[in-house]
């Protein structure tokens, strides 16, 4: 609301001042031809109102309201010159004193454009010099300056003139003119310096203003040159000069507005950045965020660095450690007050903190997201690793139990069997001998069962001789005629071999139990960095992949190694169990 009121007040003031200028122009007392009057009125209104309008427009482009207010001020100050349209000593004296305020404001605007902030001592000095020269300086000059003596016959009297000081008039005027030239040179110099140190977006904003400034400088230099050549202007030329000068002044607000608009367009790139980062198919990888930031900031040297708390250092998007360099400006990205990433960018971008902040705020969402995903991936990797360790642990445990059975119970039973047979050998046929025979048979059966149990726990040949011989044994024992296609290759990681073995074992057992198959083909090949085993029968099919705890447990086992188990069992089309096991699971 306050803003609307303020805007309304400015508009009203500008309207009143403009109309007052027109009125003063018409009735002020100076003789002007009709067309000149019209042109001058139009030019006066155009310059003043365009500054005010451009200022109001610029003011909306946060966060540089100062620039907008300065432009408004230039426009309003411009209308002060209308006082000079009144042909009276008082008006003449007043306009001579304060008429150049708009130029001081313009100098101020040029120095601080587009940020609105004074960034150095030099800039402050130039701004102050402008105000001092063009208002108090003019007043001081008026004390000594006699318009009549300076050759202006039509000028009204200078009310501030002190007759005693009139002798210094020409020198003082020369001094003030020279100082004003220095001011112009200083403003041009400051703008040039800012240009040199400016980031690409800032240059894009400064360029239109600099062009306008250069055009105006050339114009006034030409004017001065003509004056020096002694071409005294005729009154008609004078009016024309006034008009054309005003028309050229119109370029200023245009230049400022174009510059600010470009700046705003750059900032709108941040919006594009958000869309770009949000819309990628492969997610906002750190590298993509870095590239997008570079584009949004017009700075291809933009680099992202991530803070790793456990390493207490920064790493780049590829995970390599980086030191924060001196050659780049560093903007830290914080979460909960702790830095989690740093943006390294061209120092010139420091003149655009809002742009950088906006880009960083946008990128932070993606980076946060990416970071959460990275943490999730890390946790998933941990879970996977622990699952794989569980499988390995279980396998190791089975190996241990098998070995204990073999070295313990089996050996003891065998020894007992030996003793029994020796005892039996000492006896002829007798009830005792028959009992021993029966005990021996029972022992032999127990040994058979124990052997099957031990082999089921862990086939010794698998860890001793490898997958191909172990599969060969499986296939040989298969009740359903089975073929094996497995080239004996180099030994594979133990978890892979054991998992493949148990997949084939379980699948063959299922074939024997359910499939009603005539034959079954087993294959195991190493291809593309993985072991691929397949058990395919020509039976009834229609097996439920989800059914049967055997295969489901195997699916978990296979998944624990980052592998995949598939059961393809169309009714009447046989059953095909395939397992793919990466040899080097990404842990």
């Amino acid at each position, binding site marked *: 609301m306050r803003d609307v009121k303020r805007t309304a007040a400015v508009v009203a003031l500008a309207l009143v001042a403009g109309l007052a200028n027109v009125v003063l122009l018409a009735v002020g007392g100076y003789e002007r031809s009709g067309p000149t009057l019209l042109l001058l009125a139009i030019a006066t209104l155009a310059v003043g109102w365009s500054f005010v309008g451009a200022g109001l427009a610029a003011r909306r482009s946060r966060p540089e309201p100062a620039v907008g207010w300065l432009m408004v001020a230039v426009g309003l100050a411009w209308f002060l010159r209308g006082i000079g349209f009144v042909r009276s000593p008082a008006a003449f004296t007043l306009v001579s004193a304060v008429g150049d305020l708009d130029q001081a404001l313009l100098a101020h605007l040029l120095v601080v454009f587009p940020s609105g902030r004074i960034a150095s001592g030099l800039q402050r000095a130039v701004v102050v010099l402008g105000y001092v020269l063009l208002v108090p300086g003019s007043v001081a000059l008026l004390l000594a300056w006699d318009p009549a003596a300076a050759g202006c016959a039509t000028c009204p009297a200078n009310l501030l003139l002190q007759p005693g000081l009139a002798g210094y008039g020409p020198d003082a005027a020369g001094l003030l003119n020279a100082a004003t030239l220095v001011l112009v040179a200083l403003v041009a110099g400051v703008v040039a310096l800012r240009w040199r140190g400016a980031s690409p977006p800032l240059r894009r904003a400064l360029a239109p203003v600099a062009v306008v400034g250069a055009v105006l400088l050339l114009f006034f230099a030409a004017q001065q040159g003509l004056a020096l050549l002694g071409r005294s202007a005729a009154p008609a030329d004078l009016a024309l000069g006034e008009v054309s000068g005003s028309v050229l002044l119109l370029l200023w607000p245009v230049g400022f507005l174009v510059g600010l608009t470009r700046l705003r367009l750059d900032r709108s790139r941040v919006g594009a950045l958000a869309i770009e980062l949000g819309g990628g198919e492969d997610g906002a990888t750190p590298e993509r965020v870095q590239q997008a930031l570079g584009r949004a900031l017009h700075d291809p040297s933009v680099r992202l660095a991530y803070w790793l708390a456990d390493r207490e250092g920064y790493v780049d998007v590829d995970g390599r450690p980086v030191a924060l360099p001196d050659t780049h400006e560093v903007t830290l990205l914080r979460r909960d007050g702790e830095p989690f990433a740093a943006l390294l960018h061209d120092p010139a971008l420091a003149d655009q903190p809002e742009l950088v902040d906006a880009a960083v705020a946008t990128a932070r969402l993606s980076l946060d997201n990416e970071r959460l995903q990275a943490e999730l991936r890390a946790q998933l990797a941990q879970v996977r690793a622990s699952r794989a360790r569980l499988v390995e642990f279980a396998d190791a445990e089975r190996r241990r139990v098998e070995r204990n059975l073999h*070295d313990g119970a089996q050996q003891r039973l065998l*020894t007992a069997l030996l003793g029994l*047979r020796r005892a039996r050998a000492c006896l002829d046929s007798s009830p005792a001998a028959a009992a021993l025979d029966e005990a021996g048979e029972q022992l*032999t059966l127990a040994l058979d069962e124990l*052997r099957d149990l031990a082999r089921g726990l862990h086939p010794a040949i698998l860890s001793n001789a490898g997958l191909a011989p172990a599969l060969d044994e499986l296939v040989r*024992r*298969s009740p*359903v005629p089975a073929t094996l296609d497995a080239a004996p290759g180099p030994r594979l990681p133990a978890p892979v071999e054991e998992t493949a073995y148990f997949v084939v074992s379980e699948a063959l057992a299922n074939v024997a139990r359910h499939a009603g198959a005539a034959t079954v083909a087993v294959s195991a090949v190493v291809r593309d960095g993985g072991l691929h085993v397949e058990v395919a029968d020509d039976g009834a099919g229609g097996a439920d992949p989800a059914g049967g705890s055997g295969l489901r447990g195997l699916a978990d086992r296979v998944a624990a190694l980052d592998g995949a188990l598939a059961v393809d069992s169309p009714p009447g089309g046989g059953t095909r169990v395939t397992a793919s096991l990466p040899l080097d699971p990404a842990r």
Partner: protein
Amino acid sequence: MRVLVADDATLFREGLARVLADAGFTVAGQAADGDELLALARDDPPDVAVLDIRMPPTHTTEGLETARRLRAAHPGVGVLVLSAYVEVHYALQLVTDAPRASGYLLKDRVADLRDLTEAVRRVGEGGLVIDPAIVAQLVGRSRTRSPIDELSEREREVLGLMAEGRSNAAIGERLHLSPKTVEAHVRGIFTRLGLLPAADDNRRVLAVLAHLRM
């Protein structure tokens, strides 16, 4: 016939030594692992070494390795490897490594002292011995479309006994067949399987095993 026995299970080893002694073998020494056996054999090579396939230090296939080293040092010594498991792979590896005076026997054969002592004797005499359980897996296994399927029941029995390393005479005795009948069966089997008649029993075993292994 002089025998060395090696097994890390002391009670079983001593029982085995006693059984062999009872059966008329001279047990010249006992060893708890392969190195000990090799040391004993170096001092006084036996006719046959009977050893466990799983021995210290790794309890995997030390027996096979010991057999290899033993034969390299003493080519005349027969080697009978005992195992708790039916491992076709190792059995075939053993006899193809040394196609004479070697054998692979399931430990359970101690249930039949005659089987055990006969196996030791056959190995001591330079023959090959393959455990019937191994042969059963080889013959009984149902590879698709095997010429073995076309053999008669009796022929399959003969084939199995050949694969176990038995001579025609032993086969005839076992199956109560006349030597001529056995010979006829053997010829028939060789023709069916497309094998060339072998010069001696060991080569015959190897040829049969090689065929079965396919």
